[in-house]
């Protein structure tokens, strides 16, 4: 354990900002620092004793206005393993359901003096709005169709551990980019890390000006994933499937679902990612999703806890400095 603590001490740097609201809050050296730190937590999490006291005395509040299983439990575990007091506020049954505004809820919570507030909300910009009203650090765990920066960070960690580096890799982000906060955060981090980013999907699911994001846009999946090192699939939201943005799930699967045949055009040793939860047989074939020789999907979940521990630890270090 001393080894781990020493390693953490050498690698822990204060977060560059008080809040982590968007991927662009991080510059390339910050990203590298966080990934280096997260690597330590990956090893720690694989030991039988996973608990540290880095955040002892700190209070972490998970405020999820949208349903989430993996992100919420990932933050909860990250907080607990770092020794913070962690509570989950179920916003569905809270005073929000009784009509309280987001700001009122935030002010009320703030009075309870939490140190770290993890927020997921269905409206873009909600986390930034909260950050203006509270005294603690706010972590954006997904705001509408805007960003999900810790997801991008864990994706970065998964890619770096699989390939040893991120720069120079070709990453194809495929599917419903239009509605995806994961894609928006990933485009920013991947570009910052020197990867070549492609967006692949039907024109109805790619924002019209996405070619100005430093990405190449493809509407033909085979062209889009040709020679890609990583194929990052996005979840297709059920409510967008039937005739609104795409004609049907079977047509989507035919042209944009990842199966062996399409994956064959990717680079040798290409890896497949998915932020979950997956629609099997719609955007991804089970044969691919469950093939551990190509799929990083399980790794992503594991890296999620470590990456969030790195974020929480460095945000707490920042709070320490601010004091």
């Amino acid at each position, binding site marked *: 354990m001393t080894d781990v603590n020493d390693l953490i001490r050498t690698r822990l740097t204060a977060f560059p900002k008080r809040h982590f609201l968007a991927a662009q809050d991080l510059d390339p050296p910050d990203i590298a620092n966080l990934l280096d730190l997260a690597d330590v937590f990956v090893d720690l999490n694989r030991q039988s004793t996973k608990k540290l006291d880095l955040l002892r005395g700190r209070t972490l509040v998970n405020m999820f206005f949208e349903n989430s299983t993996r992100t919420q439990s990932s933050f909860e575990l990250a907080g607990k393993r770092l020794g913070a007091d962690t509570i989950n506020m179920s916003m569905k049954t809270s005073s929000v359901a009784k009509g309280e505004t987001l700001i009122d809820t935030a002010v009320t919570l703030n009075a309870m003096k939490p140190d770290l507030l993890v927020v997921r909300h269905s409206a873009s910009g909600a986390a930034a709005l909260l950050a203006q009203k509270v005294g603690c650090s706010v972590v954006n765990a997904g705001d509408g169709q805007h960003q999900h920066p810790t997801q991008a960070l864990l994706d970065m960690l998964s890619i770096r551990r699989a390939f040893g580096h991120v720069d120079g890799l070709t990453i194809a982000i495929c599917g419903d980019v239009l509605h995806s906060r994961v894609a928006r955060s990933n485009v920013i981090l991947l570009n910052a890390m020197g990867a070549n980013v492609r967006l692949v999907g*039907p*024109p*109805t699911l790619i924002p019209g000006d996405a070619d100005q994001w430093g990405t190449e846009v493809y*509407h*033909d999946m085979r062209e889009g994933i040709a020679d890609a090192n990583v194929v990052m699939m996005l979840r297709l939201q059920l409510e967008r499937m*039937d*005739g*609104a*943005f*795409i*004609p*049907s799930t*079977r*047509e989507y699967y*035919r*042209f944009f679902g990842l199966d062996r045949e399409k994956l064959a055009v990717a680079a040798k040793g290409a890896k497949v990612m998915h932020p979950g939860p997956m629609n099997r047989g719609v955007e991804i074939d089970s044969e691919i999703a469950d093939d551990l020789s190509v799929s990083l999907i399980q790794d992503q979940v594991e890296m999620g806890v470590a990456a969030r521990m790195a974020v929480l630890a460095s945000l707490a270090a920042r709070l320490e400095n601010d004091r």
Partner: protein
Amino acid sequence: MSALAFVNARLIDPATEYDGPGSVIVAEGVIADVIYGHETPSGHAGIRVIDCDENAILPGLIDMRVRTGEPGSEPKETLKSASLAAAAGGVTSFVVQPDTDPCIDEPAMADFILRRARDIELVHVYPAGAATKKLEGRQMAEIGLMAEAGALYFTNGDEPIVNSKILSRVLNYANGFNALIAHRPKEPWLSEGAVATSGEMAARMGLPGVSALAERIMMERDLALVELTGARFLVDQVSTREGLGSLERAKAKGLEVFASVSINHLMFNELDIGDYRTFFRLDPPLRAERDRLAMIDAVASGLVDVIVSNHTPEPAEHKRLPFSESTPGAIGLQTLLPALIGLHHENDIPLIDLLRTVTQNPAQLLGLDAGRIAKGAPADLLLVDIDAPFALRERDILSKSKNSPFENRTLQGKVLKTLVDGRIVYEI
């Protein structure tokens, strides 16, 4: 199938811009050779030589807008009866509209049309797919899967997609497949209940009319959405002078916009509905003479790309009714070519230019290897006596429905032989 040599012919081929003497050799379903000039081909043993007697050899016509009643309304027309009419009229390829019952809004239906055509073995029949499910204008149809199954373009039939957001999504989505979307420029609320073009004539006849501007209003919206999405777009039958203005502006912007016109709007005007003859009740309704003349100019200048028959069979029970209660539409597969020849004579437009709108242009738009007289091309060819006059009598009409506005008119241009993939499918 023995090889055929069509000698001593006048070749008219818009794709090579050749209109002059020549011969064509057909073997194995394709054009084996084209000889320009008066030279007689030699060295072809075992070949059947057909002396064309200076009659014209043309590429088979491609008609982009045809309705039959199959499936669902077979008493109007079947794919077989339409194919017979097409072969007799020199149309070697036609595209059926998706507004059948059930409609062509999924790949299995597109496949059904192609399989039926294969079984009938007369002319090429291709499906156009529905742009929205059940043609309701609410949900996008399976454009990608239908394109893969062989649908050549996508359309909402005679009813436009009213919701601009849905049309914009359809255009955007189709763009990913480089699919062509055809859309009727018909402002639905202004057009509601109208059976004629509003004006002095309709007013005097007491018929509810729609302003010619209803076409321009819809075109302006559609073309703005095309500009937004960059889609390949066909204005499905422009018919007014105002509409041509919109078309011209869109083309000047460099948009991938094309337009068709029905042969009826080049041949007839609103005066033809004078005695309430329902065979002249059409959709779009017949327009003023100034519109007709503007359409002819637009065809001559190339502003309008394609001429269609808009073949719409309606049986007597839908036509022997008061004008405003009858169903709009007229058949046209069998009369498309003679009507074009008539246009050529009356308006001094070179025949080769008119033929381009029913051969080379639709072939390019639809991505068909057809519509040209060239070595290696499929032998879809016509032998036509261009000057032969004839009167169209009801008993000559091969369509099951007889609603032809050309009935008892004297026409010019008799198809002597029609070849599809080198097979003679019609001859007199």
